[in-house]
């Protein structure tokens, strides 16, 4: 390693290669714990999904598919821009890096904005268990759904999307920090681990959403008229 890189290398590593592999592995291992965090909730969801299939399908059909789908595309796009910004760092294209990072933040903010809008529309639609929930509608369905089991499904909806949103917020914070680092010229083809590792996190949050979409929104049968804000 050239002496110019010396400051990048922490005192307890032998070389940059070792440091990079260590940091990558640390993040992957952290993501393994994240798999189990979301996995444990998915397990709870699965148990009740198997137990109360009709109620879950009925509740799912009431969720806002339009916002859910648009948000999926928004988040996938943000993953693309994130991947491109890592690429830009690796090849040293500073301008592309800034553009892509900013785009990622904008897309993430769009996702959260739409999510907030969706929560609001759920509130308007009496879909908030415990707080604002209209059970009458569920008994009028054919076959009638048990309002309590519908509440259970909605509880999972809020817990899962809520935890996902918290992860998004953390990711946004990290992205803002990355922009500051990039401004100071601290993201270079040699010094790219920060963005690489945060990228891994961001993509993982995207993957979680990839599973939330079918589990929450696509489990019931929708109709064309469902597509509204």
């Amino acid at each position, binding site marked *: 390693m050239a002496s110019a890189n010396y400051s990048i290398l922490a005192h307890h590593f032998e070389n940059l290669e070792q440091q990079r592999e260590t940091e*990558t592995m640390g993040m992957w291992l952290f993501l393994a714990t994240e798999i189990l965090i979301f996995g444990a909730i998915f397990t709870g969801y699965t148990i009740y999904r198997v137990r109360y*299939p009709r109620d879950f399908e009925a509740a799912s059909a009431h969720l806002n598919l339009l916002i859910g*789908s648009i948000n999926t595309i928004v988040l996938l796009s943000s993953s693309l821009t994130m991947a491109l910004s890592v*690429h830009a760092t690796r090849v040293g294209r500073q301008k592309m890096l800034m553009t892509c990072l900013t785009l990622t933040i904008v897309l993430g903010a769009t996702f959260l904005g739409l999510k907030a809008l969706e929560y609001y529309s759920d509130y308007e639609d009496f879909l908030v268990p415990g707080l604002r929930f209209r059970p009458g509608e569920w008994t009028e369905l054919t076959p009638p759904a048990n309002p309590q089991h519908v509440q259970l499904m909605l509880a999972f909806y809020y817990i899962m999307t809520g935890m996902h949103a918290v992860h998004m917020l953390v990711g946004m914070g990290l992205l803002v920090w990355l922009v500051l680092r990039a401004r100071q010229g601290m993201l270079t083809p040699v010094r790219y681990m920060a963005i690489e590792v945060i990228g891994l996190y961001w993509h993982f949050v995207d*993957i979680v959403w990839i599973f939330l979409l*079918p589990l929450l929104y696509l489990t019931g049968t929708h109709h064309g008229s469902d597509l509204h804000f």
Partner: protein
Amino acid sequence: MSESITPTRTYYRVFATLIALTLLTVGLSFLELGAWHTTAGVLIGVVKATLVALFFMHLLHSSRASWLAVLAGLFWLLLLMTLTLSDYLTRPMLAY
């Protein structure tokens, strides 16, 4: 630094596939599939997640230790799900 740098073209292709799969899975929800909605949705989700992990997250070119971490996470999740379900699915047959 000896790691290969994925060309941007790959990213665009993967992204196009992801969008196509999203449209497919959302489209499927308008059909009357009953319980198969979840199965189909999760299967498409697995494909999408694999694409993201392999290409966006560079798992394809990652070290064995990274693979180990991912596989361990997935294996343990499988354990949690199957053994818990072993209770719930057999409980109607014989429980106290």
